[in-house]
């Protein structure tokens, strides 16, 4: 009796997780793949359509548009995030007073809901009364159509997303910078290394893992971008801010195309995994 109990004990302990795993992970993945071969609006019976969803996917202009938008977003978001986080971490790493205050200030947007951040930035981006344009015109520059110009809007959202997330990476870069002993820089100076060389050969190796983390987390974040365009632009103007997640949402809950939205979800998920795997390989090679 006690032996049987002892044998079963571990399984009892993990059973709540196993149930969760079966119900909310394994079943959905399997069902999702099955859904991609069907047309279904939840109410009418499911209709088998073979590869129709996949054929439609490759011909769907909006699917490619969402991929293009995500690429454009990441093209600005990733370098900007690395540059700003690194610059702020560098400034903070000098043993200044009030370091705790600055750290807390930079970190503030990270903890606040994206909904709040988006509502605020929607006003900052305003054409006439928005703070950014008022600042620009007061310095004698022209206004920027932050959200109404189709070739600008996705970059505006990338700037906002950077502002929201960068505080986390400041902290992580700071941790990286602090692993480098001061004596390394002193030795390098004695050897006559200039500041670029010091950065390249001493600082960069210490913060490399953090840079790669920013790249990978931002890539996943870019494909999951949802509430920002949902509130600010609804994907417009001219679908220029239609993100991958927003498109899945619209197909599923705007048109009730469950089969097609599952196809989109599967495809974007695979794309994320492939891109992240490639990035990881590139990183391991670099190291």
């Amino acid at each position, binding site marked *: 009796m006690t032996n049987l109990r002892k044998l079963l004990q571990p399984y009892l302990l993990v059973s709540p997780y196993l149930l969760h795993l079966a119900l909310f*992970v394994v079943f959905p993945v399997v069902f999702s793949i099955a859904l991609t071969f069907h047309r279904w609006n939840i109410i009418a019976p499911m209709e088998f359509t073979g590869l129709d969803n996949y054929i439609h996917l490759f011909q769907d202009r909006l699917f490619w548009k969402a991929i293009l938008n995500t690429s454009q977003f990441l093209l600005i978001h990733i370098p900007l995030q690395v540059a700003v986080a690194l610059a702020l971490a560098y400034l903070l790493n000098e043993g200044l007073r009030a370091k705790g205050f600055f750290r807390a200030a930079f970190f503030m947007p990270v903890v606040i809901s994206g909904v709040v951040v988006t509502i605020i930035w929607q006003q900052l981006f305003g054409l006439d009364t928005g703070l950014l344009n008022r600042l620009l015109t007061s310095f004698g520059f022209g206004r920027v159509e932050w959200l109404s110009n189709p070739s600008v809007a996705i970059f505006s959202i990338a700037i906002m997303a950077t502002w929201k997330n960068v505080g986390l990476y400041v902290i992580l870069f700071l941790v990286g910078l602090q692993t480098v002993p001061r004596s390394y820089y002193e030795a390098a100076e004695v050897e006559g290394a200039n500041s670029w060389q010091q950065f390249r050969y001493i600082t960069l190796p210490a913060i490399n893992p953090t840079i790669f*983390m920013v790249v990978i987390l931002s890539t996943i974040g870019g494909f*999951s971008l949802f509430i920002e365009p949902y509130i600010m632009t609804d994907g417009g103007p001219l679908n220029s801010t239609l993100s991958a997640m927003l498109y899945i949402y619209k197909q599923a809950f705007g048109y009730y195309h469950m089969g097609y939205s599952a196809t989109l979800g599967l495809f974007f998920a695979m794309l994320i995994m492939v891109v992240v795997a490639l990035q990881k390989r590139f990183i391991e090679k670099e190291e």
Partner: protein
Amino acid sequence: MSKPIKYILLTLAALSFLYPFYWMIVASLTPEAQIGELGILPKGLTFDNYTQMFAKIPIGRSLLNSALVAGLSTLGVLVFGAMTGYALAKLRFKGRNGLFFVIIFTMTLPFQITLIPNYILMVKFQWVDTLAALVVPALNSAFAILMFRQAFQTIPNDLVDAARMDGCGELRIVFQILCPNILPTIITVAILTFMNAWNDVLWPLIVIREERLMTMPQLVTLFAVGGRAEAQLGVKLAAAVLLALPVIVAYAIFQRHFIQSMASSGLKS
């Protein structure tokens, strides 16, 4: 770079992160017509925006819903995370390694793939427009399990063996003997889980349509995009202030814990 220049740059940066929140709070207390000209100092203090917002949406109710949902999911994640993490760290059983790899794999699985089928599951369970749809799928977290596993591994086996000698059951060992030794991990998991649940909007938008069951970020989102704020900026901002306020207060008190928790989760992933 000299020290004063560094201070000036840091101060400018800090202002750019804090001013927008300051502006939001001041603008929510400003008459609609004057918000556009708002600079640094408040103009014509009024609570109009708040009274209008309270009249239009059940924001108090949504606050309770959010607290309930985030609280229950956090409790579930802690309890089940500790149980599973303990089994993985301290017990030997067939399939343990397999389970460990499955958990790691689910962490790398993008949620885009499970979102639609999970919604359909909620429809089939008839959980759409119930709080169960918000709580039950959030009761377990792979990340929490891995955190607990790692923390329990640092505790010597002797402690577990001694407790077993004294006749403790496994659940008592997990929650009474081991958990008090890993409080930092518990705090980290609790903060991250609560914050994620509190700030989530996408899932509530999908499974809740009835206004009295909506979570706070969801209600504020729909208020901001829908026509009910009647393009009144001040009213929208008042709703945003109430949504931000609990987090700002918690952050002011537990600032160090917030930063440490999020940094440690970042370093692990």
